[in-house]
């Protein structure tokens, strides 16, 4: 099932300079970010990135003492108009399935907006989306940005 894309989940300690160190390290190693989101609590944050070289990114971060890992998420294409997002969420919700978190790509892919979602039952969600005629992008399709 190759309809997943790789996302980096990075543990960010809630300390001055941590975020700057992470983005600087990625920049220095010419790693490009196409989508991101950050979940924060009082003590720490989880930075989620879609990068063009995810495995390399993990190593780069490890070398500066930052813990990161690769998580599989879904990249769902939608029309850049009102209702685009709602159709996707409706399809998943009506099937009784859960979305853990989501965020969107900064730019468009082949003219369409792209949503990144993490679900707790990817197989079922893929089935529902395909049935509803919603396009899910693969790794290679996303890299053509």
């Amino acid at each position, binding site marked *: 099932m190759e309809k997943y894309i790789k996302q980096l989940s990075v543990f960010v300690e809630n300390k001055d300079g941590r975020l700057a160190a992470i983005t600087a390290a990625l920049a220095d190693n010419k790693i490009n970010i196409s989508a991101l989101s950050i*979940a924060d609590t009082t003590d*720490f944050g989880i930075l989620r990135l879609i990068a063009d070289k995810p495995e390399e990114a993990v190593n780069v971060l490890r070398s500066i*003492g*930052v813990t990161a890992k690769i998580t599989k998420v879904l990249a769902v294409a939608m029309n850049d108009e009102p209702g685009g997002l709602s159709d996707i969420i409706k399809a998943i919700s009506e099937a009784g399935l859960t979305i853990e978190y989501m965020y969107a790509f900064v730019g468009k892919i082949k003219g369409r907006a792209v949503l990144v979602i993490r679900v707790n039952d990817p197989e079922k969600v893929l089935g529902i989306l395909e049935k509803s005629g919603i396009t899910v992008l693969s790794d290679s399709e996303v890299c053509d940005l």
Partner: protein
Amino acid sequence: MSIYNKEIECMDREALRLLQSERLRAQVNRMYRNVPLFKQRMDEKGLKPEDIKGVEDLYKLPFSYKNDLRDNYPYGLFAVPMKDIVRVHASSGTTGKQIVVGYTKNDLEMWADCVSRILTAAGADENAFIQVSYGYGLFTGGLGAHGGAEKIGATVIPTSAGNTQRQIQTMIDFGTTLLCCTPSYALYLGEAIEEAGLTDKLSLKAGIFGAEPWTEDMRHEIENKLHIKAYDIYGLSEIMGPGVSYECEYQCGMHVCEDMFIPEIINPDTCEVLPYGEKGELVFTTLTKEGFPLIRYRTRDICSLNAEPCKCGRTHIRMEKPAGRSDDMLIIRGVNVFPSQIEEVLLKINDGSTTPNYQIIVDRVNNTDTFDLQVEMSEELLADDVRSIENIEKRITEQLRSALGIGVKVHLVNPKSIDRSEGKAKRVIDKRKLK
């Protein structure tokens, strides 16, 4: 100032030595018959009870250690049948298991006798109102102080620890004249009372403070804040509880209840007995405990002994305030904590494969000990969502509270945040100035 038991506390030293020798002989005999570990250690040294004629032969006897209590958990070192043990107490061990101590009826009587000496030395008698703010329970502090206070006929106010507002209200309304608690709690109470402008409403005259190390500066602060004279006491559960030694009004060292305990100072590495005046590890031999006697128990506390006569008239030897330990045990908010206990919990969180890198940071803020644990966020522990990581933090906190008996603030940090030194990792950073 009064002396509770002049006959004993001011006993001529030769007579005291004879008493100790007699008691030591009897105890060695009894332990050889009833405590398998002791018999084994004696046999290993080729020693028989008859070889011990008195205190002069003490140096021949084998040592005992905290790990003996762990290895013989819970009752393996008791010298009487369990039907004669009327109480047990417990304290932190180096691993998850507590160390357990036991008392016969007579042992409790003698414990109360020792504590009575302390309270009397601090000026208390049947007219005193003694508030015991040490924790009551398996900890020896609360019930230990209580036993002595009741014995001298004082009015005992058993508040136990915690609930500061209630403690202060009680102290004022019930007319407390003597306070028993940890020195840091006394400071905490003192500040709270001062802030509320209630210092003049107190009837306090004195306080007996122990269970953790404290400095002369802290003593002065307590005395200034609470307008009392602050006395130091020393004890440990394995030997009895509070009351092993205590300060008289001259406050120049603590008199050991030498009719009940023989102190020695040894070099912790060579085990050679050191002369009076030299600093080393404090070792105790109990003389009157029936339930759980101990010979040459290594306390891991570092101090020296002073055999000079004291102005108060008591002839029992004085020990200086312990100035550190020869092991890695910490005392946080009056509770004994071993880094190995923390390691045990962390190993379990990681499913037993490896212990995540960690560091303990202890400090004192507003007179209360703070206890922070930094744990490395390793790839094994990293989860993709906030809830899972928060659950890890929560689990570590709860399991530590359960294992240690006190709260720890857990911080998950990046791998490089914790210093990785060559060789032994620096596991503990103690920022408190306790010397």
